[in-house]
């Protein structure tokens, strides 16, 4: 039986490993924009949540969500390759989506590398729909697929 450790908010202790995971699993071939300093700033930003599975020496997966008034943006999500296919990604997404649902945020947006069909398939299974293709989104070299999940239909669900 696989025991899934609880999801928690990242601390400053986690910043270096999260940055390394971004470099190795997400930003490969693009340079390194999510440096430890940038991750640390996100840890300290109250409008951003970084969800982590595992302790700071052995992070299995993480996700970074920024919450605005009407739109939340998933900046990064990664699960270590040897720990994929266990549902960790879906758990992280649900955990990060919870504040958006409680606060009436209408949509979550994200960009995925157009050359990563596995990621795009994962987000589709989480209820995300493609809304645009953004040419050269990553450093002018790799296209992004923008995906969106809508929560609130606004003030229109009751016939008036």
């Amino acid at each position, binding site marked *: 039986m696989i025991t899934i450790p609880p999801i928690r908010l990242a601390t400053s202790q986690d910043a270096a490993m999260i940055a390394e995971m971004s470099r190795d699993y997400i930003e490969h071939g693009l340079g390194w924009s999510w440096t430890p300093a940038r991750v640390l700033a996100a840890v300290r930003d109250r409008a951003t949540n970084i969800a982590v599975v595992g302790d700071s020496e052995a992070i299995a997966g993480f996700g970074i969500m920024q919450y605005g008034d009407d739109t939340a943006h998933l900046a990064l999500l990664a699960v270590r390759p040897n720990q994929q296919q266990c549902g960790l990604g879906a758990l992280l997404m649900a955990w990060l989506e919870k504040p*958006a*649902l409680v606060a009436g*945020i209408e949509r979550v947006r994200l960009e995925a590398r157009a050359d990563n069909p596995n990621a795009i398939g994962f987000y589709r299974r989480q209820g995300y729909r493609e809304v645009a293709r953004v040419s050269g989104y990553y450093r002018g070299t790799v296209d992004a697929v923008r995906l969106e999940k809508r929560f609130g239909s606004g003030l229109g669900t009751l016939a008036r």
Partner: protein
Amino acid sequence: MAVAAVAPQVQWLGRVSYEPTWRAMQRYTQERDADSPDQIWLLEHDPVFTLGMNADAAHLLAPGDIPVVQIDRGGQVTYHGPGQLVVYPLIDMRRARLGVRDLVSMLERCVIDCVARFGITARCRANAPGVYVGDRKLASVGLRIRRNGSYHGLALNVGMDLEPFRRINPCGYVGLEMTQLSELGGPHDVAAIAPEFAALLTARLYR
């Protein structure tokens, strides 16, 4: 948490109707500036069903003679009525150095601490907002953030007629049962618990 620049104003509004109170929250949030004090409103509502931003009208099974209002908070359908403590924290989130998750957790934690004083053990859940005693829901949370200001908030069932909850699928969950403090050996009177809750919340917000 940072200390607020201006002392918060805590107000007991008594029993008030839903829509004017909602509009007043929106107006305060729209008009507040960096010097405006935070406000914490505690009150009871006249009977009303409210449909949140994520509400599916199919969960409103048989509202009968209770009015239905479609509103701008997060979450699904719920019921408010006399005997339920409603708390609206109108907080400058940036000044208080709070995110949405922080405020939701703080409200849930205040309920857990408040009811523990009556010997009631309540819990929150990882992926569903609100506070539960066993499988039954004791308190619901739904917010809205505009211009860094929070409004809407928390509803804690104290000593009320729970029958209207059976006219809906509360929070969108079929068959979710509600409970209240008076059924759990706690107080029956909203006005009696409101000052205690306000003290717990302000202590957490401004410590």
